[in-house]
């Protein structure tokens, strides 16, 4: 948990809440739950039977530091903790009681979506892949998480239906952009900057947006997705500035 990472998902939730006037303090427990789920997914992703990644957040992956069994158990513990704490965290965040249970179910569904995304990701290795398949995997692994985080923040701030649609469009585009950027960084960044070994996808034979479009094309696509995400915020006016700044931060990763 504590080496940090970018904390994009909880940050996204807090920023979305900020746009609609939700208190960051009240939102923090729910945001922490999201980060717990994300960490659990990373621990599982790094396992030898999955991505077999040696580094995570600049440090040895958990299964290398301890053992695979410990890593698996830790991931389950993190998930259980997150799911157990989430309803209360939502209530504290100011989410109406009627929604708490449903959005807790959505978090559980997100875990299922992440599993589906990871399964799809494993299936990509060594095979010819279509853009549709890539998008499906990325949407399940990252996009869904971004959407849930941003929508929860907005919901806690009392966003209306149209505003919610803007936030969802923002998160969907930003999520895919982030994943495309991640594909680019796998090719061009050194491990010190990314906290992950370089060329990991290529070694695993995993097709990515870089495989399909090349680095320049993938960069271009990421920028267009970020621009769309920014345009999605236009109806929210100046209040959406924190989310625009989030996009600026993502842009710096390119």
């Amino acid at each position, binding site marked *: 948990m504590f080496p940090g990472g970018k904390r994009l998902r909880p940050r996204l939730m807090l920023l979305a809440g900020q746009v609609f006037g939700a208190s960051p303090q009240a939102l923090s427990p729910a945001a922490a739950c999201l980060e717990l789920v994300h960490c659990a997914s990373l621990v599982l992703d790094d396992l030898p039977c999955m991505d077999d990644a040696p580094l995570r957040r600049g440090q040895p992956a958990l299964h290398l530091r301890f053992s695979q069994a410990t890593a698996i158990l830790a991931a389950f513990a993190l998930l259980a903790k997150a799911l157990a704490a989430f309803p209360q965290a939502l209530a504290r965040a100011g989410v*109406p009681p*009627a*929604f708490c*249970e*449903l959005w807790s179910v*959505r978090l559980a569904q997100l875990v299922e979506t992440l599993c589906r995304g990871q399964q799809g990701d494993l299936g990509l290795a060594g095979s010819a892949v279509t*853009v*549709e398949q890539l*998008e499906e995997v990325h949407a399940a692994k990252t996009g869904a998480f971004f959407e849930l985080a941003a*929508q929860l923040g907005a*919901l806690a701030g009392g966003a209306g*239906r*149209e505003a*919610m*649609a*803007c936030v*969802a*469009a923002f998160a*969907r*585009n930003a999520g*895919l952009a982030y994943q495309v950027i991640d594909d680019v960084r796998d090719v061009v960044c050194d491990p010190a900057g990314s906290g992950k070994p370089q060329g990991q996808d290529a070694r695993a034979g995993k097709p990515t*947006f*870089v495989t*399909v*479009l*090349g*680095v*320049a*094309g*993938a960069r*271009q*696509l990421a920028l*267009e*997705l970020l621009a*769309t995400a920014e*345009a*999605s915020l*236009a*109806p929210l006016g100046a209040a959406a500035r924190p989310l625009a700044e989030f996009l600026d931060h993502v842009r710096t990763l390119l």
Partner: protein
Amino acid sequence: MSAPSSELARVREILRARGYLAPPGSSGTRGFWPRLAGWSLLLAATCTLVAVSAGGGAAASLLLFTLAAWPTVAVLVFLATRLGTAAAARLLAWGARPEQAALAMGALAAVGVALAVAGCTGGGDPRPPGWLGLGAGLLLALHVFRASRRELLTTLHLEEHCRTPGPWGAAAVVVAGALALAWPSSGKPQLPWAPLSGLVPKTRVAVLAVDGLSREELAAGAHLLGGGVEVLARLPWARVEGADRQLPAEFWTTVACGAGPREHGVAVMEETRPFGLPYGAALAPWGRVLLAGPWQWVGLMPRLAKPSLQRRLPTFWEMASRAGYPVTVGGWWGTWPVRLFAGQVVSERAMLAGATTQDAVSPPLASLVEESFARPEPLPLRVTLLGEAIAKRAARRPGPQLLAVAFPGLDLEARGAAQPPLALAARQLPHLAILGRVVEGLLEGGFQVLVVGAGWQGGTWFFASSKLAAAANPTLPPETVAPLVLAALELPAAPYHRFPPGVGNAPLGAPRTDYGPPPPPASLPDREAARLQRELLESLGYVQ
């Protein structure tokens, strides 16, 4: 590594199709007001379709009615939306799950739509296009259920709990609506009158249509007055059943045509006409609120008397006329406007209001109407005296002929101000006395007299004729009177006529004749005449 721009373009295209690279505004999400406008327009169109097709209105009025109803329906839908959202919030506060609240609100919306649509049928027995319209309404209700549920879930940010409604619902509504419109509603065309060959007039027949006279009142009148009334009461008679919930124009047209309202098409006495259109639709009370709404209060969608232009079958006097019988018709409901055939008619418009225009009365009888309306007696008595004058005039003519005359005076007395039974009976006695005189005169003139008594205020409805079997008093539906009149005239029945078993001289296997469609109207009534007639009908208590 650089991708060709075409590859990037292809990827863009794929991602766009999957909901990326487009801000929410351009991805098809519509705002509240366009949705409100769309739904209310669809509801207004469906209600209009049901009301117009169920009430036998002109299809051409659909668009105007829909546009007229749109603002009212939009306001109602807006209020329903707000109330529904408030009710859903209340349900949520009481601990209901959002899905349950959405389900309940969707069901309420569907019930509301179904009631609105059903209310526009008037609760009657709609013709096939009306049923189709009703089917379209039910499909719309189902569609509204799904859409309302989705709307609420989306408002609650729970879109993933519902599937996007497919286009089938709206498509089914449109198809059912189109079928309802395309349904052949006009039946046979109205052709100029022409005589039929091979039929010879032989007898003198008088058919008296007495509104407000039940069998019991006739018996009491016979006891008090004797004479012609007693003769009338002694005629063999049959009970007429199944018509007491019909309107006078509907019932008497059924009697005259020998077929039910579905076949002859006259089922209403008034209609709502939008914005000066020469035709409109008969709207049920709820339909009027929904479709005519505020327009009727500012006079842009007036309620007018409906002339019987929509009749699709000939009456027995038109059939007799085609067979060569001289025909006189007086005051029979559904005879306005007068039709172009070889006969003379005083329509109900002339008989009740004294109108002498070409649409109301055949010119040779106009003087009778004028004379009657110059008399000092109150309207009910004046009307009965006019009936007597028409009968007397016909009786003077020698040779075979048909007289069909209505006597609504008894009913008019009963529909007037509330009065004690004895006082009413006293007011009705002069009418019965006149009726007795008429019967005596007709019998002396060699007429075979047939009488239909419609006890609108209660009592037994009856058909009396010397040709009926005197033993038991059988029961017959009103549709069987016309073929019995034709039998009295020694004319073949129309192909669609049916005789009640065991009543009169039911000629099983007797030849039938196609008398063709009804003749066209002599002239179309104008809007002012329709307005005046409706006011009269309202003042007399025939319409509310």
